Protein backbone atom coordinates (compact mmCIF):
# COMPACT_ATOMS: atom_id res chain seq x y z
CA UNK A 1 0.00 0.00 0.00
CA UNK A 2 1.46 3.40 -0.93
CA UNK A 3 2.36 5.87 1.72
CA UNK A 4 -0.38 8.20 2.99
CA UNK A 5 1.48 11.25 1.71
CA UNK A 6 1.57 9.81 -1.79
CA UNK A 7 -2.07 8.89 -1.64
CA UNK A 8 -3.00 12.40 -0.57
CA UNK A 9 -0.96 13.91 -3.38
CA UNK A 10 -2.56 11.63 -5.88
CA UNK A 11 -6.02 12.39 -4.56
CA UNK A 12 -5.64 16.16 -4.57
CA UNK A 13 -3.82 16.31 -7.91
CA UNK A 14 -6.08 14.00 -9.87
CA UNK A 15 -7.00 15.49 -13.20
CA UNK A 16 -10.74 15.21 -13.00
CA UNK A 17 -12.70 17.93 -14.77
CA UNK A 18 -16.11 16.47 -14.02
CA UNK A 19 -18.42 19.26 -12.91
CA UNK A 20 -16.19 22.03 -14.22
CA UNK A 21 -18.19 24.77 -15.93
CA UNK A 22 -16.73 26.40 -19.08
CA UNK A 23 -14.73 29.53 -18.45
CA UNK A 24 -17.08 31.85 -20.33
CA UNK A 25 -20.01 30.72 -18.23
CA UNK A 26 -18.06 31.11 -15.00
CA UNK A 27 -17.04 34.64 -15.94
CA UNK A 28 -20.58 35.55 -16.87
CA UNK A 29 -21.82 34.25 -13.52
CA UNK A 30 -19.16 36.28 -11.71
CA UNK A 31 -20.24 39.44 -13.51
CA UNK A 32 -23.88 38.69 -12.74
CA UNK A 33 -23.12 38.21 -9.08
CA UNK A 34 -21.12 41.43 -9.11
CA UNK A 35 -24.13 43.29 -10.51
CA UNK A 36 -26.44 41.69 -7.96
CA UNK A 37 -24.02 42.62 -5.20
CA UNK A 38 -23.89 46.22 -6.41
CA UNK A 39 -27.68 46.43 -6.46
CA UNK A 40 -27.87 44.98 -2.98
CA UNK A 41 -25.34 47.49 -1.72
CA UNK A 42 -27.27 50.31 -3.34
CA UNK A 43 -30.50 49.19 -1.72
CA UNK A 44 -28.79 48.77 1.62
CA UNK A 45 -27.29 52.25 1.32
CA UNK A 46 -30.66 53.76 0.47
CA UNK A 47 -32.25 52.02 3.43
CA UNK A 48 -29.45 53.28 5.66
CA UNK A 49 -29.87 56.85 4.44
CA UNK A 50 -33.62 56.62 4.96
CA UNK A 51 -33.18 55.27 8.45
CA UNK A 52 -30.74 58.07 9.26
CA UNK A 53 -33.16 60.65 7.87
CA UNK A 54 -35.86 59.30 10.14
CA UNK A 55 -33.57 58.99 13.14
CA UNK A 56 -32.02 62.47 13.07
CA UNK A 57 -35.25 64.41 13.85
CA UNK A 58 -35.99 61.98 16.66
CA UNK A 59 -32.54 62.49 18.14
CA UNK A 60 -32.78 66.25 17.75
CA UNK A 61 -36.18 66.27 19.44
CA UNK A 62 -34.89 64.16 22.28
CA UNK A 63 -31.84 66.41 22.71
CA UNK A 64 -34.09 69.48 22.76
CA UNK A 65 -36.27 68.02 25.49
CA UNK A 66 -33.24 67.18 27.58
CA UNK A 67 -31.83 70.63 27.04
CA UNK A 68 -34.36 72.20 29.38
CA UNK A 69 -32.71 70.52 32.33
CA UNK A 70 -29.16 70.51 31.05
CA UNK A 71 -26.59 72.52 33.03
CA UNK A 72 -25.81 75.93 31.65
CA UNK A 73 -22.13 76.48 30.91
CA UNK A 74 -20.46 79.55 32.30
CA UNK A 75 -19.93 82.47 30.01
CA UNK A 76 -17.09 84.90 29.75
CA UNK A 77 -19.06 87.61 27.97
CA UNK A 78 -21.97 88.14 30.28
CA UNK A 79 -23.08 91.50 28.94
CA UNK A 80 -23.07 90.78 25.23
CA UNK A 81 -26.54 91.10 23.73
CA UNK A 82 -27.54 87.89 22.02
CA UNK A 83 -29.60 87.22 18.98
CA UNK A 84 -32.88 85.42 19.57
CA UNK A 85 -32.34 81.66 19.79
CA UNK A 86 -35.18 80.87 17.42
CA UNK A 87 -34.64 82.21 13.95
CA UNK A 88 -37.83 83.14 12.14
CA UNK A 89 -38.92 80.93 9.26
CA UNK A 90 -38.75 82.23 5.72
CA UNK A 91 -41.97 83.77 4.44
CA UNK A 92 -44.44 81.23 3.18
CA UNK A 93 -42.82 78.36 5.03
CA UNK A 94 -44.41 76.80 8.06
CA UNK A 95 -42.16 76.93 11.10
CA UNK A 96 -42.10 73.64 12.96
CA UNK A 97 -39.91 73.89 16.05
CA UNK A 98 -38.01 70.67 16.77
CA UNK A 99 -38.31 70.50 20.52
CA UNK A 100 -37.50 73.28 22.89
CA UNK A 101 -34.67 75.68 22.13
CA UNK A 102 -31.43 75.19 23.94
CA UNK A 103 -30.85 77.36 27.01
CA UNK A 104 -29.23 80.75 26.58
CA UNK A 105 -25.56 80.90 27.32
CA UNK A 106 -25.18 84.66 27.26
CA UNK A 107 -26.53 87.47 29.33
CA UNK A 108 -29.99 88.87 29.16
CA UNK A 109 -30.66 90.53 25.81
CA UNK A 110 -32.76 93.54 25.07
CA UNK A 111 -31.42 96.01 27.60
CA UNK A 112 -31.64 99.55 26.15
CA UNK A 113 -28.34 101.07 25.16
CA UNK A 114 -28.77 104.03 27.47
CA UNK A 115 -28.49 101.72 30.47
CA UNK A 116 -24.95 101.50 31.81
CA UNK A 117 -23.58 98.57 33.74
CA UNK A 118 -23.04 99.21 37.44
CA UNK A 119 -20.67 97.35 39.70
CA UNK A 120 -22.63 97.65 42.91
CA UNK A 121 -26.24 96.93 43.75
CA UNK A 122 -28.54 99.94 43.98
CA UNK A 123 -29.40 101.38 47.36
CA UNK A 124 -33.09 100.73 47.02
CA UNK A 125 -35.71 99.25 49.35
CA UNK A 126 -36.31 96.02 47.44
CA UNK A 127 -34.92 92.53 47.72
CA UNK A 128 -32.72 91.09 44.98
CA UNK A 129 -32.80 87.30 44.98
CA UNK A 130 -29.66 85.26 44.50
CA UNK A 131 -29.22 83.53 41.18
CA UNK A 132 -26.76 82.11 38.70
CA UNK A 133 -25.89 85.66 37.71
CA UNK A 134 -26.93 89.11 38.87
CA UNK A 135 -26.35 92.27 36.85
CA UNK A 136 -27.11 95.91 37.59
CA UNK A 137 -27.67 98.79 35.24
CA UNK A 138 -28.18 102.47 35.97
CA UNK A 139 -29.41 105.19 33.72
CA UNK A 140 -27.96 108.66 33.15
CA UNK A 141 -29.42 111.59 34.97
CA UNK A 142 -32.71 112.78 33.54
CA UNK A 143 -33.84 109.33 32.35
CA UNK A 144 -37.44 108.30 32.99
CA UNK A 145 -36.30 105.37 35.21
CA UNK A 146 -33.38 104.98 37.60
CA UNK A 147 -32.05 101.51 36.88
CA UNK A 148 -32.48 97.85 36.16
CA UNK A 149 -31.63 94.65 37.98
CA UNK A 150 -31.47 91.29 36.24
CA UNK A 151 -31.19 87.93 37.97
CA UNK A 152 -30.57 84.85 35.88
CA UNK A 153 -32.10 81.61 37.15
CA UNK A 154 -33.17 82.82 40.62
CA UNK A 155 -32.37 80.23 43.24
CA UNK A 156 -35.32 81.01 45.46
CA UNK A 157 -38.88 81.95 44.58
CA UNK A 158 -39.39 85.65 45.00
CA UNK A 159 -42.65 87.46 45.47
CA UNK A 160 -43.86 90.06 43.04
CA UNK A 161 -45.02 92.95 45.19
CA UNK A 162 -47.42 95.55 43.90
CA UNK A 163 -50.23 95.40 41.39
CA UNK A 164 -50.33 93.01 38.49
CA UNK A 165 -50.51 94.75 35.19
CA UNK A 166 -51.40 93.31 31.83
CA UNK A 167 -48.67 93.16 29.23
CA UNK A 168 -49.67 93.57 25.60
CA UNK A 169 -50.66 90.14 24.27
CA UNK A 170 -48.12 88.22 22.22
CA UNK A 171 -45.11 90.40 22.91
CA UNK A 172 -43.18 87.70 24.76
CA UNK A 173 -43.55 84.89 22.24
CA UNK A 174 -43.43 81.46 23.88
CA UNK A 175 -42.02 82.92 27.09
CA UNK A 176 -44.46 83.24 29.97
CA UNK A 177 -44.16 86.54 31.80
CA UNK A 178 -45.71 87.91 34.95
CA UNK A 179 -45.20 91.55 35.92
CA UNK A 180 -46.28 93.67 38.86
CA UNK A 181 -45.75 97.35 39.56
CA UNK A 182 -45.48 98.86 42.99
CA UNK A 183 -46.37 102.56 42.65
CA UNK A 184 -45.61 103.23 46.31
CA UNK A 185 -42.03 101.96 46.16
CA UNK A 186 -41.58 102.87 42.48
CA UNK A 187 -40.47 99.36 41.61
CA UNK A 188 -41.56 97.04 38.81
CA UNK A 189 -40.95 93.30 39.10
CA UNK A 190 -41.14 90.77 36.33
CA UNK A 191 -40.58 87.03 36.14
CA UNK A 192 -40.06 85.36 32.76
CA UNK A 193 -40.17 81.61 32.14
CA UNK A 194 -38.83 80.44 28.78
CA UNK A 195 -39.56 77.02 27.24
CA UNK A 196 -35.83 76.32 27.27
CA UNK A 197 -35.86 76.38 31.06
CA UNK A 198 -34.36 79.84 31.37
CA UNK A 199 -35.85 81.90 34.12
CA UNK A 200 -35.24 85.62 34.44
CA UNK A 201 -36.17 87.98 37.20
CA UNK A 202 -36.12 91.72 36.44
CA UNK A 203 -36.56 94.79 38.53
CA UNK A 204 -37.03 98.23 37.03
CA UNK A 205 -36.93 100.98 39.59
CA UNK A 206 -37.33 104.74 39.69
CA UNK A 207 -39.55 106.99 37.64
CA UNK A 208 -43.27 106.62 37.37
CA UNK A 209 -45.36 103.57 36.54
CA UNK A 210 -45.83 104.41 32.88
CA UNK A 211 -42.11 104.87 32.36
CA UNK A 212 -41.28 101.58 34.07
CA UNK A 213 -43.94 99.76 32.04
CA UNK A 214 -42.64 101.23 28.79
CA UNK A 215 -39.13 100.13 29.66
CA UNK A 216 -40.16 96.58 30.57
CA UNK A 217 -42.33 96.23 27.46
CA UNK A 218 -39.42 97.34 25.33
CA UNK A 219 -37.10 94.84 26.98
CA UNK A 220 -39.62 92.01 26.65
CA UNK A 221 -40.13 92.71 22.98
CA UNK A 222 -36.39 92.78 22.33
CA UNK A 223 -35.64 89.73 24.46
CA UNK A 224 -38.55 87.39 23.81
CA UNK A 225 -40.66 88.82 21.03
Amino acid at each position, binding site marked *: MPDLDDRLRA*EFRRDDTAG*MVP*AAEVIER*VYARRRTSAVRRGVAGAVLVGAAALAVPVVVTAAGDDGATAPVPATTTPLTPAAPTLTPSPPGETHVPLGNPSPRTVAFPGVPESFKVAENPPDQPFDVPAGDAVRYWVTPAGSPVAGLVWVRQPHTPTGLPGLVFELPPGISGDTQTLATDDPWENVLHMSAYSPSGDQDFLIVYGGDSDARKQVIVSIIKAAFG
Partner: protein
Amino acid sequence: MDRTEFEEFASAGLPALFRHARALTGDPQDAQDLLQDALLRVWRAWPAVRRDGNPIGYAKTTMVRLHSSALRRMRRRLAGRPVAAPPAEEPSAVDRVDDRHHLRGLLMRLTPTQRAVLVMTYLEDADDRTIAVALRRRPSSVRATRSRALAKLRADLDPAGPRTARGVLPHA
Protein backbone atom coordinates in the same frame (compact mmCIF):
# COMPACT_ATOMS: atom_id res chain seq x y z
CA MET B 1 -11.65 48.03 -14.82
CA ASP B 2 -10.06 46.03 -17.58
CA ARG B 3 -12.34 43.10 -18.25
CA THR B 4 -10.16 41.61 -20.94
CA GLU B 5 -7.22 40.95 -18.65
CA PHE B 6 -9.46 39.51 -15.95
CA GLU B 7 -11.21 37.23 -18.44
CA GLU B 8 -7.88 36.05 -19.82
CA PHE B 9 -6.69 35.28 -16.33
CA ALA B 10 -9.91 33.46 -15.42
CA SER B 11 -9.93 31.42 -18.61
CA ALA B 12 -6.31 30.39 -18.33
CA GLY B 13 -6.36 29.69 -14.63
CA LEU B 14 -9.73 27.98 -14.44
CA PRO B 15 -8.49 24.34 -14.49
CA ALA B 16 -5.94 24.95 -11.75
CA LEU B 17 -8.38 26.96 -9.69
CA PHE B 18 -11.12 24.37 -10.09
CA ARG B 19 -8.72 21.60 -9.02
CA HIS B 20 -7.83 23.64 -5.97
CA ALA B 21 -11.48 24.28 -5.15
CA ARG B 22 -12.41 20.64 -5.61
CA ALA B 23 -9.53 19.54 -3.41
CA LEU B 24 -10.72 21.92 -0.71
CA THR B 25 -14.39 21.00 -0.86
CA GLY B 26 -14.38 17.43 -2.17
CA ASP B 27 -17.52 18.13 -4.15
CA PRO B 28 -17.73 19.49 -7.73
CA GLN B 29 -20.80 21.66 -7.11
CA ASP B 30 -19.42 23.11 -3.92
CA ALA B 31 -16.12 23.63 -5.69
CA GLN B 32 -17.86 25.57 -8.46
CA ASP B 33 -19.56 27.79 -5.90
CA LEU B 34 -16.33 28.39 -4.02
CA LEU B 35 -14.54 29.18 -7.27
CA GLN B 36 -17.11 31.80 -8.22
CA ASP B 37 -16.97 33.37 -4.77
CA ALA B 38 -13.21 33.66 -5.09
CA LEU B 39 -13.31 35.03 -8.64
CA LEU B 40 -15.86 37.61 -7.55
CA ARG B 41 -13.45 38.86 -4.93
CA VAL B 42 -10.58 38.81 -7.38
CA TRP B 43 -12.62 40.87 -9.82
CA ARG B 44 -13.49 43.40 -7.11
CA ALA B 45 -9.81 43.83 -6.24
CA TRP B 46 -8.53 43.37 -9.77
CA PRO B 47 -6.42 46.56 -10.02
CA ALA B 48 -4.51 45.68 -6.86
CA VAL B 49 -4.31 41.99 -7.77
CA ARG B 50 -2.93 42.83 -11.20
CA ARG B 51 -0.36 45.14 -9.65
CA ASP B 52 0.65 42.37 -7.27
CA GLY B 53 1.38 40.14 -10.25
CA ASN B 54 0.11 36.82 -8.87
CA PRO B 55 -3.64 36.59 -9.43
CA ILE B 56 -3.63 32.78 -9.26
CA GLY B 57 -2.02 32.87 -5.83
CA TYR B 58 -4.46 35.53 -4.70
CA ALA B 59 -7.41 33.48 -5.89
CA LYS B 60 -6.15 30.32 -4.21
CA THR B 61 -5.55 32.09 -0.93
CA THR B 62 -9.02 33.62 -1.20
CA MET B 63 -10.51 30.18 -1.71
CA VAL B 64 -8.68 28.78 1.30
CA ARG B 65 -9.89 31.61 3.49
CA LEU B 66 -13.42 31.42 2.17
CA HIS B 67 -13.52 27.67 2.65
CA SER B 68 -12.54 27.94 6.29
CA SER B 69 -14.72 30.99 6.86
CA ALA B 70 -17.43 30.45 9.42
CA LEU B 71 -19.37 33.35 7.91
CA ARG B 72 -19.53 31.65 4.53
CA ARG B 73 -20.68 28.39 6.07
CA MET B 74 -23.41 30.24 7.94
CA ARG B 75 -24.50 32.05 4.77
CA ARG B 76 -24.70 28.78 2.88
CA ARG B 77 -26.68 27.25 5.68
CA LEU B 78 -29.12 30.17 5.66
CA ALA B 79 -29.42 29.88 1.88
CA GLY B 80 -30.40 26.24 2.24
CA ARG B 81 -27.27 24.96 0.52
CA PRO B 82 -25.19 22.21 2.04
CA VAL B 83 -22.42 23.56 4.22
CA ALA B 84 -20.19 20.70 3.19
CA ALA B 85 -20.64 17.39 1.54
CA PRO B 86 -22.52 14.94 3.73
CA PRO B 87 -20.26 12.97 6.04
CA ALA B 88 -19.09 9.76 4.60
CA GLU B 89 -20.80 6.66 5.76
CA GLU B 90 -18.91 3.91 7.46
CA PRO B 91 -16.76 2.41 4.73
CA SER B 92 -17.83 -0.98 3.55
CA ALA B 93 -15.46 -3.82 2.76
CA VAL B 94 -15.68 -2.93 -0.89
CA ASP B 95 -14.78 0.69 -0.14
CA ARG B 96 -11.80 -0.44 1.83
CA VAL B 97 -10.59 -2.27 -1.21
CA ASP B 98 -11.05 0.88 -3.32
CA ASP B 99 -8.43 2.96 -1.55
CA ARG B 100 -9.13 6.18 -3.38
CA HIS B 101 -12.83 6.13 -2.67
CA HIS B 102 -12.12 5.27 0.91
CA LEU B 103 -9.66 8.12 1.28
CA ARG B 104 -12.13 10.61 -0.18
CA GLY B 105 -14.70 9.56 2.36
CA LEU B 106 -12.24 9.99 5.17
CA LEU B 107 -11.15 13.41 3.93
CA MET B 108 -14.75 14.56 4.10
CA ARG B 109 -14.68 13.92 7.83
CA LEU B 110 -11.92 16.45 8.40
CA THR B 111 -12.66 20.02 9.41
CA PRO B 112 -12.36 22.71 6.70
CA THR B 113 -9.16 23.98 8.26
CA GLN B 114 -7.59 20.53 8.49
CA ARG B 115 -8.48 19.86 4.89
CA ALA B 116 -7.15 23.25 3.79
CA VAL B 117 -3.83 22.55 5.48
CA LEU B 118 -3.55 19.19 3.74
CA VAL B 119 -4.48 20.66 0.36
CA MET B 120 -1.91 23.42 0.62
CA THR B 121 0.68 20.90 1.79
CA TYR B 122 0.15 18.16 -0.76
CA LEU B 123 -1.31 20.02 -3.72
CA GLU B 124 0.60 23.28 -3.53
CA ASP B 125 3.70 22.01 -1.72
CA ALA B 126 3.46 25.12 0.41
CA ASP B 127 5.61 25.51 3.49
CA ASP B 128 4.22 26.08 6.95
CA ARG B 129 4.82 29.81 6.86
CA THR B 130 2.87 30.23 3.61
CA ILE B 131 0.02 28.12 4.91
CA ALA B 132 -0.01 30.07 8.15
CA VAL B 133 -0.27 33.36 6.28
CA ALA B 134 -3.07 32.04 4.09
CA LEU B 135 -5.05 30.75 7.06
CA ARG B 136 -4.09 33.62 9.36
CA ARG B 137 -2.65 31.24 11.90
CA ARG B 138 0.72 30.54 13.42
CA PRO B 139 3.08 28.03 11.81
CA SER B 140 2.97 25.96 14.97
CA SER B 141 -0.80 25.83 14.73
CA VAL B 142 -0.50 24.71 11.11
CA ARG B 143 1.85 21.91 12.09
CA ALA B 144 -0.44 20.79 14.87
CA THR B 145 -3.46 20.88 12.60
CA ARG B 146 -1.69 18.81 9.94
CA SER B 147 -0.44 16.35 12.52
CA ARG B 148 -3.93 15.83 13.91
CA ALA B 149 -5.44 15.48 10.45
CA LEU B 150 -2.88 12.89 9.38
CA ALA B 151 -3.23 10.98 12.62
CA LYS B 152 -6.98 10.85 12.13
CA LEU B 153 -6.60 9.63 8.57
CA ARG B 154 -4.05 6.98 9.58
CA ALA B 155 -6.24 5.78 12.39
CA ASP B 156 -9.24 5.47 10.08
CA LEU B 157 -7.24 3.84 7.31
CA ASP B 158 -5.93 1.23 9.71
CA PRO B 159 -8.54 -1.54 9.75
CA ALA B 160 -7.74 -2.46 13.31
CA GLY B 161 -8.05 1.11 14.52
CA PRO B 162 -11.81 1.62 14.40
CA ARG B 163 -12.55 -1.79 15.94
CA THR B 164 -10.30 -1.10 18.86
CA ALA B 165 -11.74 2.34 19.21
CA ARG B 166 -15.25 0.94 19.45
CA GLY B 167 -14.08 -1.47 22.10
CA VAL B 168 -14.80 -4.61 20.07
CA LEU B 169 -12.37 -7.26 21.17
CA PRO B 170 -11.06 -9.66 18.56
CA HIS B 171 -12.24 -13.23 18.92
CA ALA B 172 -9.78 -15.72 20.13
